[in-house]
Structure formats: structure tokens, C-alpha cells
């Protein structure tokens, strides 16, 4: 039968997964980039399986359901290492084991919805307009006149001064909490003019549920190297180097099982990363206390290599912005690309701790 033949062919492909991770499982999710059997998609639209990993804050339940509904049908949900608290989401499979087990479960979930689409999961939210606007106003556009109203629930763009002294239209957006390039749970309310961020506010709407979410300082060199490699895998992915991200993630899983060849691989990885020019292209981006993103990358690469080769647990890394205001101040006035690069280059717990403990 043609359909089952197609389904088998699709099931053999790397499963496209969109991962929503709590802070406690974020590193483990990044490590999945090293597995060729799945592919972590940048947007839920490109995924077939939603992987919900670790502790999701209760306040992010609405966002989680929205991400769920953004996956094209047929879709499946796999829950991994859920602590039992946080928003509930119907799942096709619940796994509490290793990365290998979750990858197998994801593959099985994909194959099962392909074989029998009736097993796929239905929408969680009703399909309706966010605001009631139809029929309001002289043209039924939701407001008065050309400028009026909030068509489709979105306010019309209003003008504000830009950096060239022209008052041009602004765009208000909320980024997060599950936007792929951002640290997990971080929600930013931004005002954009073109691609330049005019205003940034860190959203604290989601109340914290657990406080053990922020990872403590690593105790062993292997743990430190692994954490660094998790960061590196995500950062390389965001800078457009997915294949190298796969290499970093694979190395992290080697470290996890105590592979002795890992130190040489780390050396080689660091050289490859330097050769891509990413350090050069990040120069001057997001400077905190005189250290820019490029410096932070270099420090972190050196720390990974040192941890694996010399068994050194790195001391506290470079300075991170101390609070929300400092973080927002770092992002205002730069382009969205640079803002994302800055966020990615920062030490993650430094950003996340206040987000959880607020």
C-alpha cells in the first residue's frame, strides 16, 4: 500500500522534534543534538514530535499548550523526566530514562502516528480568534477609520523615534518562553524598529514553582565539561552551525560515559569552532565589564578543553549582567541578531537564576 510505504520511508528519516525544556533538563536536551536519529527543529512548525523535558513552570502552561497546537498534525508528545509538578499535557509516551531511551521513544511515537494517524494528538486550545473584532467599525475591521482598532487583536504599529531621528513605526513583540534561540523560560517583551531593539523588558509573569531548577556549580571536571559542551551545542546551533553543534553534543555524551578519547576530541572541536570565524564575527557584541561575546566564547572553549585535558574545574566564569535591568540594558539599541548572540553567549544560570527565584 502506498500510504504505509510512505509512512515507513518517513519513519526512517531523522524524527523532527521540537523540544520544550525546563532549566533542569535543558542540557540533556542539547545533548540530543548529537544523535543522528532525531533532528531538533528550530520551530514547532517543522516538527512532528513535541518533547517536553524536565520541570516546566506552572505559569508557562498556556504557552506550552500554544506550542503544542503549533505543531502540524499529525503530532505526538513525549514527556521526559517530568517531576510530576507543572502544567499537565497529554502525552503519547512518558520516559524517565536515558537520552538513548528518549530518542527511541520519540522514534516510536513518530512511527506510531505515521502508521495510525488516529493516534495523533488533537488541539488543546480552541481554534478561535484571540479577540472578538469581526463586524466592529465602519468596514468591519475591528476599529474606527483607517487607523482605528486592533485588527486581529494586534494594535496598529505606532511611531517612535529611531536612531536616525526619524519617527518610524514600531513593532511590539513577546519572545519566549520557549523560543528556540533563547534560554529556557526567558520571556522578553521587546519593541523593535526594523531589526533594532528599542525597548526590552524581562517578563516575570510566570511564577516559579521549583527552586532547584537552577543548576549549581559543577563539582567534577567531567560535569563542568559536559555543561560547557551543552552550552556550546546550543550556541553553535544558534550561530547557524548545526553540524558542529552535533559534534559538540556527541562529545558531551562521550564525556558522560567517561570516554578516554574525549580530551583529544575536545581539542579538535575547539580548533574547528575557532576556524569557523564565529569568534571573529562576535567581536564587540554584548560587552559586559569589558568582555564581549567573543571573549566569553573563548573562555568557555578554553574551560572545556582544560576540564577534559587537565582535569581542572573552572572557577566562576566571566561576569554576567547582575539583574533584569542590566540584562535589558545590554540588549537595547542593538539588532535582534546581536541581542540573540549576546544572550546565547552569557552564562546561562546567570541569566536564569533571577528568572526562577524572582
Amino acid at each position, binding site marked *: 500500500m502506498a500510504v504505509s510505504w510512505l509512512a515507513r520511508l518517513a519513519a526512517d528519516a531523522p524524527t523532527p522534534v521540537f523540544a520544550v525544556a525546563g532549566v533542569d533538563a535543558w542540557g540533556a536536551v542539547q545533548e540530543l543534538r548529537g544523535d543522528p536519529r532525531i533532528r531538533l527543529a528550530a520551530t514547532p512548525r517543522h516538527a512532528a514530535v513535541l518533547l517536553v523535558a524536565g520541570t516546566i513552570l506552572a505559569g508557562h502552561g498556556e504557552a506550552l499548550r500554544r506550542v503544542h497546537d503549533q505543531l502540524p498534525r499529525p503530532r505526538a508528545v513525549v514527556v521526559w523526566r517530568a517531576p510530576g509538578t507543572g502544567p499537565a499535557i497529554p502525552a503519547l509516551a512518558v520516559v524517565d530514562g536515558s537520552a538513548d531511551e528518549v530518542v527511541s521513544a520519540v522514534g516510536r511515537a513518530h512511527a506510531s502516528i505515521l502508521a495510525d494517524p488516529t493516534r495523533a494528538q488533537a488541539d488543546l486550545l480552541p481554534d478561535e480568534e484571540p479577540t472578538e473584532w469581526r463586524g466592529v467599525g465602519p*468596514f468591519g*475591521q*475591528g*476599529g*474606527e*477609520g*483607517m*487607523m*482605528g*482598532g486592533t*485588527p*486581529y487583536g*494586534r494594535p*496598529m*504599529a*505606532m*511611531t*517612535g*523615534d529611531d536612531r*536616525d*531621528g*526619524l*519617527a*518610524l*513605526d514600531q513593532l511590539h513583540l513577546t519572545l519566549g518562553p520557549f523560543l528556540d534561540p533563547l534560554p529556557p523560560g526567558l520571556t522578553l517583551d521587546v519593541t523593535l524598529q526594523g531589526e533594532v531593539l528599542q525597548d526590552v523588558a524581562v517578563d516575570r509573569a510566570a511564577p516559579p514553582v521549583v527552586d532547584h531548577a537552577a543548576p549549581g556549580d559543577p563539582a567534577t571536571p567531567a560535569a563542568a565539561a559536559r555543561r560547557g559542551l551543552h552550552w556550546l551545542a546550543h550556541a553553535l546551533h544558534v550561530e547557524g552551525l548545526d553540524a558542529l553543534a552535533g559534534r559538540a553534543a556527541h562529545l558531551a555524551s562521550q564525556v558522560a560515559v567517561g570516554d578516554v578519547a574525549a580530551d583529544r576530541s575536545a581539542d579538535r572541536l575547539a580548533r574547528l569552532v575557532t576556524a569557523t570565524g564565529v569568534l571573529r564575527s562576535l567581536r564587540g557584541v554584548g560587552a559586559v565589564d569589558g568582555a564581549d561575546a567573543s571573549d566569553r566564547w573563548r573562555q568557555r572553549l578554553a574551560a572545556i578543553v582544560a576540564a577534559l585535558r587537565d582535569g581542572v574545574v573552572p572557577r566562576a566564569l566571566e561576569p554576567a549582567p547582575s539583574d533584569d535591568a542590566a540584562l535589558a540594558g545590554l540588549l537595547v539599541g542593538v539588532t535582534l541578531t546581536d541581542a540573540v548572540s549576546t544572550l546565547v553567549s552569557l552564562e546561562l544560570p546567570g541569566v536564569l537564576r533571577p528568572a526562577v527565584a524572582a
Partner: protein
Amino acid sequence: MTGVDVAFWVFALAAVWSGYRVFRTDSMVRASFLLLASFLNVGAILVLLLAEYLGTALLFMMTVEMVVMALFMVMFMMNPAGLNPMEMVHQPRLAAVAGVVTTAGLGLVAVVVDFPDAPVDPAAETIRALGTELLGGSMLVFESAGVTLLATMVCAVILSAARGRYGDGTAGSVAPPLEPGGDHRPEDDLVGDGGGGHHHHGGH
């Protein structure tokens, strides 16, 4: 009707229809790209008329120009996506009459005047001839156009720059009244108003 005739009428109707839709759509972006569609169809007609270079050059030039146009439209006007109706017209009757009169007058010229019948030779090296003409007999015209374009670039940069030779470009200027033709309110003057005026789009 030959294939060329059919193609001509398709392109001609598309050019006219998209030209008309430019002023009838609710979205600035669509307006710019409809105008581009009109240009593309005229370019295609030029190719049918054996002016290959002019036709393709028109495609090339107008595409870039309309992309810039679309950017400007969205920069300066509210409602870029066409979510709200866009009806920004004045003197519609006069304009329509002027349009019809222009079309009728020119159409009359087209039909009545007896133009010489001297069709271009399909085998002629028209592109080579154009190149030779541009760098030969019409060199002065061509070079003048080049220098004029350079002057235009300089002027455009000066006009649009935030700071002029004598300081702030907006010095002494006043904000517009909120209503067209309304009284100017001194408190709206941009001078000394660090934030600039926010009135124009402040519809709600």
C-alpha cells in the same frame, strides 16, 4: 492571431489591470508589487517589440526600485499589511476625469495620427546598435544622464540626512496641525521637543 499577439494581449491586460489595482488595494506592500507587476508586463511587451535589452533592463531596474519602494511605503505609512481599509484619496472625481481625459486624448492621437510605417528589422543587431549609439553619437546624452544620476545621489543624501551643514536639519521647523488645514499649535513645535512629534499617527 499569432502567438505573439496572444502574448501581447495577455501582457497588456495584466499591465493595465495591475496598474489599476495599485490604487485600489488596502496594502502598501501589495501596491508596490502590483506596480512592479505592471512594469514587468511592460518589459515583456518591450521584449516582444524586439527591444530585448530595454525590456530586460526594465525588469531589472524596476524590481530593485519597487523593493525600495515597498520598504519606504512600510516605513512611512501605517497599516502596511492591509488589515485595515486604506482610503487616502482627495479630489477623486477631478482625478478620475483627468485620467479619462488623458487616456481619451492620447488614445485619439494613437488612432488618428498617421505614423510612418517603418518596422524594425527582426534580424537587426539592435543591442549592438544601442551600445554603439550610447558610446558614440549619443555619448553626451548618456554621460549627462550619468552625471545627473550622480548629482541626484548627492542631493538625495543631503536632503535626507539628519544633520545639515548648518546644524540640525529640523531647526526652526514646526509640527503639522492634527487636522488637515487646522491651526498650528505653537506647543507642537519640534524645536526643543526632544522626543520629536508623535501626533501624526496618534489616532487612538
